[in-house]
Structures are given as structure tokens and as C-alpha cells.
């Protein structure tokens, strides 16, 4: 059994209404050092298999097809076998 993590973030240049709202909330709490904030998604997966290369290529496929929308989002993944 392998463990995988997928991080999905909005592409640069895509405005993030959620991130902006959280940023404003932090500033109103007095955390003036926060210069920018963007909200993303984090997913944990359990995968059957031992072949790291194969699992990564399959997970990349899953990310492009369903987990992320390549028009507005980027993804990054980590696989531990």
C-alpha cells in the first residue's frame, strides 16, 4: 500500500475570492505581516501498488482528468511507497 498526497492550487493570475476574504479577515485580526494568501485543496490517497513511477504517472493522470481543472488549477503530488 502506498500513500499519496495531492496539492491543488489556483494558477497564478487566477483571482481567488476565498483567499482574499481570508486575507482580509487575518488583517482585521491584526496579522499585518500577511502579504498574500491563496486557498487550495489537499487530498490524501491510499494506492495499491509498489511501483512508484507507475503510481506517479497514474496519479498525474487522475489529477489532470478529475482532481484538478487544468484551466484554472495546478497540482503537485507526493507518493510514498
Amino acid at each position: 500500500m502506498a500513500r499519496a498526497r495531492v496539492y491543488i492550487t489556483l494558477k497564478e493570475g487566477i483571482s481567488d475570492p476565498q483567499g482574499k476574504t481570508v486575507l482580509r479577515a487575518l488583517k482585521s485580526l491584526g496579522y499585518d505581516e500577511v502579504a498574500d494568501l491563496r486557498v487550495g485543496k489537499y487530498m490524501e490517497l491510499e494506492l495499491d501498488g509498489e511501483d512508484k513511477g507507475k503510481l506517479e504517472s497514474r496519479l498525474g493522470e487522475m489529477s489532470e482528468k478529475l482532481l484538478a481543472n487544468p484551466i484554472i488549477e495546478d497540482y503537485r503530488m507526493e507518493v510514498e511507497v
Partner: protein
Amino acid sequence: MRFGVVVFPGSNCDHDCFYVLEHVLGQQVSYVWHGDTDVSGYDCLVLPGGFSYGDYLRTGAVARFSPVMGAIERFANAGGYVIGICNGFQILLEAGLLPGAMMRNTGLKFICRFVDIRVETSSTPWTSSASVGQVLSAPIAHNEGNYQVDTMQLEEMKRHGQVVFRYCSPEGSVLPEFNPNGATEAIAGVCSIEGNVLGMMPHPERASEAEMGSEDGLVVWRSLLTHCGVNV
């Protein structure tokens, strides 16, 4: 004409679309189940509004892989008429049948109210009976209507006349204060290059009878019927 209204788990405007097409416009209508894989025999497929698959992951992201979607893609690519309204529009975007993607409304609020939209082209089957600059009043009801498309793609869409509706003032001016959700260039509806696939956030089916507050949505249905040679 023979219409099919596609029902996904979580669709909730399917009955409204069915009612308007059958009772207001007198057309033949059937429901098409999301598990069906045969859409032959239809002239037009309607992907209605709602919250398919709970809007989980991204709006339309899961519905886009329903068994029926393969058949809808083939139907659209063969020139069949497909209209996606609200969640239906989001599904068409996820399926790549229309360009762009949806983000959350800039105000982070679910917005449910009448808006004005301006007809940007009358060269599509869906607006052939409307005039350019005509203002339609129709309701929106969405949390993710912030339409995003990159500049290059948008320029290409403009060249092909794919921007069909824009949010505007009651007089027809496109101004930031009349853009309810932050959509790029106030875009409320787009079509495919060939024009046979339309996606729009406002609900024409909720504005198809005077007693519902507006009949302006009828022009979308009537344009298509007229375009297809049906007397309306």
C-alpha cells in the same frame, strides 16, 4: 422538435425545463437519465440547473463523467443542439464542450435574483430571433458563476462570435456594478465555435411566462425552434 432534459443526481431545474418546453412551447420532451448512453432521436438536449453530485470537488466535475456524457459529447460534435443552464453550463465547461472554467462568485455569496443580460450576437441558433443589444431579464441562482477564460482564448472566442450574453444595466450598458459574480468581461453565456452548444448562467426556463416575472427567456427557445424550421 424532440427535446431531452438530462437528469443528473442533484439536478433541480429539470422539471422547470420540461414544463416550459412541453406546456409553454408545445414541444415533445422526455427525461434522459444520467446513466443512459443513447441519446439518438433527440434534436436538442438540455442540461438543467441544480447541484449535480453535490457540487463536490468542483461544480460539474463529477457529472462530467456520467455515462450519458460520452453520448452527449458525440451528439454535440455531430452538430446536435445542446444547452447547459447554470449547473448544466458548469458541466459543459468541465467536459470541455465549451471554453473556460467557473470560479466562486467574487462576493462569495450564493446569488438568487433577476439580472439583466445583453444579447451580444444574433448569429447563433439560440439568439437568431433576438437583436444585438437587446436586454433580457432572467434570474440567476448560483454560487459559482465567475466565468474565467484566459486572454488568448477570449480573443479567439470573440473572433468566432462565441460571447453570447453579458451582464448589463437595465439600459444595456456593461458596467462593473452590474456584474454580479466577477465574470471575465461580464460574460453570462457562451457558445461553441459552430454555435450548436450554448452555456448560460441565467435561467431562461424561469423567465418563460409573464406570471413568473419575465417572458424574456422565451427568445432563447423560440430562436432555436425558428432556426430549426418550427413555427412558433
